[in-house]
């Protein structure tokens, strides 16, 4: 029996049609994958099912009845629950408070805290979630927080569970645990819709997969009849080669060398703990690791955006530890930041102004304190053309461009300065396959020009494909080096989880 049926769902926002007549049929008791690239419309569809958006057209049938889901409350009544990609947890509240919020058990007008805690503990035990009902959210791990999200749904008696990209924030071990929990849930009679773009995970746990592309329904297939390559081409719409074409690296002198680096996060907790790293001219060094193991802080420390507590960072044999970002930039470091909207661009500035974000004060863009707009505009025109940034003109605010073109703009700016060291943090996050290929090619080009490239990505595949050497980071230290050509995913996964193997290929 189909427990969920969405027929011909259409939803548009000003400027785009996010869902264009999409069909989704989910059988009771299965794990159903919803597969699509970033921006394909997966989240919109699920937000419709969860009642956060209203569809412009289409029908929704739940458990054999046609329904109109007007809000999360209504979705809850229908037995639909959602684990959001960005957790929906109130940080200063306890686990129990987060779970009962909106549905509080009341005894004589007051919240029945003891009763609630008892119930939470019971459910937690039944599904093997091992959550402490009294802990505060701000004090528990990301994996634990996700289990609180799952408990929230179970507490409300949901039997249709939506998981929105749940593995992005987890370590390989935690992912395995989650897969186990998902299997437990299905055994207890729940149905799961699993939103993802990770093919391996689909192959591992799902029964059926619905593929959508650019807002349109492509196909619904049984996972057992599929392999990863065929799923990939359905998702992207053409044959994709997983390999990046590149010749063997010809590394030369050391450009970046880091010794015994210690960095703390904004709360003062040590996140980079005695890290050593070396990147040479003419090679791409990849950093693999689970989110939150100090990658962000490491790169920010190199770029001068975060204070180094202890240790040494050298660029071309001279020290740059704790220098200002401007000095580090001037000495030849380019940086494609992890979060392009937060760091990479001033969205309300024009594309032209963004192109000189670090160099506006230098000749020829300024003479003394006076900006030379002619020069700035000429320069921006050239970059936009060379890097194929699709924009009406250079006076368009960066905000108006698509994500891919925004990222191309940043890459143009950073590469054109011809830095000795290019830091690329998650350079392709959230982009479509075309833009990803473009960016990968440019990174390899930079390497071939004899520059050093330090690549950080949470997508293990990307790191393995592009890098000449891979350093696996775990709890703020390099847990081991691997050769991406000869190593296996299992080996890297083990290192990412803090295991201690890995072939020594340091040089």
């Amino acid at each position: 029996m189909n427990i969920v049926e969405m027929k011909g769902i259409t939803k548009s926002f000003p400027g785009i049609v996010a869902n264009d007549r999409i069909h989704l049929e989910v059988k009771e008791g299965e794990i159903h994958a919803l597969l699509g690239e970033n921006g394909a419309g997966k989240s919109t569809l699920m937000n419709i099912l969860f009642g956060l958006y209203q569809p412009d057209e289409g029908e929704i049938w739940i458990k054999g009845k046609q329904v109109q889901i007007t809000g999360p409350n209504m979705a809850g009544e229908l037995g639909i629950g959602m684990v959001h990609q960005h957790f929906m947890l109130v940080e200063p509240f306890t686990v129990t408070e987060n779970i009962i919020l909106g549905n509080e058990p009341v005894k004589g007008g007051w919240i029945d805290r003891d009763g609630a805690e008892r119930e939470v503990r019971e459910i937690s035990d039944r599904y093997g979630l091992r959550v402490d009902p009294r802990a505060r959210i701000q004090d528990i791990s990301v994996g634990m927080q996700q289990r609180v999200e799952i408990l929230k749904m179970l507490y409300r008696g949901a039997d249709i569970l939506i998981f929105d990209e749940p593995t992005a924030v987890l370590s390989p071990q935690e992912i395995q645990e989650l897969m186990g929990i998902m299997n437990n849930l299905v055994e207890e009679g729940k149905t799961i819709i699993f939103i993802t773009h990770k093919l391996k995970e689909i192959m591992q746990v799902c029964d059926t997969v619905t593929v959508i592309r650019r807002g349109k329904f492509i196909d619904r297939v049984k996972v057992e009849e599929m392999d990863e390559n065929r799923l990939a081409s359905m998702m992207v719409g053409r044959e994709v080669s997983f390999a990046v074409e590149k010749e063997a690296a010809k590394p030369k002198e050391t450009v970046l060398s880091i010794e015994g680096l210690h960095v703390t996060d904004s709360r003062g907790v040590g996140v980079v703990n005695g890290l050593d790293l070396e990147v040479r001219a003419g090679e791409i060094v990849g950093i693999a690791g689970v989110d939150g193991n100090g990658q962000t802080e490491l790169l920010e420390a190199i770029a001068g955006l975060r204070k180094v507590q202890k240790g040494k960072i050298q660029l071309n044999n001279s020290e740059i530890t704790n220098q200002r970002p401007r000095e580090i930039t001037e000495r030849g470091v380019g940086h494609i930041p992890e979060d392009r909207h937060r760091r990479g661009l001033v969205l309300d500035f024009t594309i032209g102004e963004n192109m000189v974000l670090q160099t506006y004060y230098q000749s020829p863009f300024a003479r003394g304190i006076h900006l030379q707009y002619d020069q700035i505009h000429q320069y921006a025109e050239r970059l936009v053309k060379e890097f194929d940034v699709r924009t009406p003109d250079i006076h368009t605010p960066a905000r108006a461009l698509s994500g891919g073109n925004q990222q191309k703009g940043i890459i143009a700016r950073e590469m054109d300065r011809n830095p000795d060291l290019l830091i690329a943090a998650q350079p392709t996050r959230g982009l479509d396959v075309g833009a990803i290929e473009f960016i990968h090619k440019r990174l390899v080009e930079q390497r071939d020009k004899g520059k050093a490239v330090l690549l950080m990505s949470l997508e293990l595949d990307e790191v393995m494909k592009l890098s000449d050497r891979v350093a696996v980071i775990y709890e703020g230290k390099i847990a081991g080096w691997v050769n991406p050509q000869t190593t296996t995913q299992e080996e890297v996964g083990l290192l990412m989880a803090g295991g201690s193997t890995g072939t020594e290929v340091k040089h």
Partner: protein
Amino acid sequence: MQLIQRKQSTFLTSLVSVLLGMLVGAVMMLVAGYDPIQAYAALLSSAFLMPYDIGETIRTISPLILTGLAVGLAYRTGLFNIGVEGQFIIGQLAATIIALKLDLPPVIHAVVAVIAGAIGGALWAFLPGLLKATRGVHEVIVTIMMNFIALYLSNVLVRNWLSAGADSTEKIPSSASLRWDSLSSLFGGARIHMGIFIALASALFMYYLLWRTTSGFELRAVGFNPDASEYAGMSVKRSLILSMMISGSFAGLAGASELLGTSGYLAIQGAHTGIGFDGIAVALLGANTPGGILLAASLFGILTYGGSNMQFVEGVPFEVVRVVFAAIILFVAANIVRWGTQKFRKKAVKEHA
């Protein structure tokens, strides 16, 4: 194309808000039994009737421009300077001290007093800027608190130092005055003074600083996105403090020129005059651009001066003008036009699909 649309909609928002605000004023007059049409007619005509009135209107506009620039410039850097009121008071205080305690030749005396006012305002704005930059303390609350500290500081100094226990200081010497007789007689003896030139020069300065210099590039970048500015090697802290200080110096200039040009002495105040709020109103209506601020200040200046005459001629209490200001601000802040067009666009999309 988009930019033009955005500019048009800003202008439309301002226009619609002004009309709605005046409508609220009209309703208020009807409630209390006045004739709004007659009252508004008296208001508008009296602001332009005679050269004297025009001169007085310009005098009213001058501080509005400066306080508007103060709020607008800070806003461009992402700061909400509610402290214009306090910086204005400190500007007055500094100018008074120079005017009364120093003995300098004419012109130089006035120039030094004006500069002192600007520096006073800048220093009073320094602390909120510093706290924001170094400790992340929200400038709104700090500047509100600083406003009251400024008020009491000014009062205590007037009573205990600048006068012998009186409620106001003596008149400033003419060497420090911003009055200029030829200008005044041109406008039928109105109290118009050099303050208007200070205001216009400041507007020009704000434009040049923000859009033509590297420092301005930094101030605007920090205003839009401090994280990206930091990444790009700019000093966010420096920009925040600089922005507050320039903003405060505009407010200080307003205080100094009002004191040296209009009132001529400093008195004890029981409460704030609302000049800082006027600045917020002007900046908001003028969309934080120097040109927009000039226009908005002119409008509010006409309403203010005309409003006091309206009270005289038609008997409508002046406070109705304050209500109109407040209503305009609510309408601009709520962006009533955008809201209306969005509703319309949503409907259009639905019908289209």
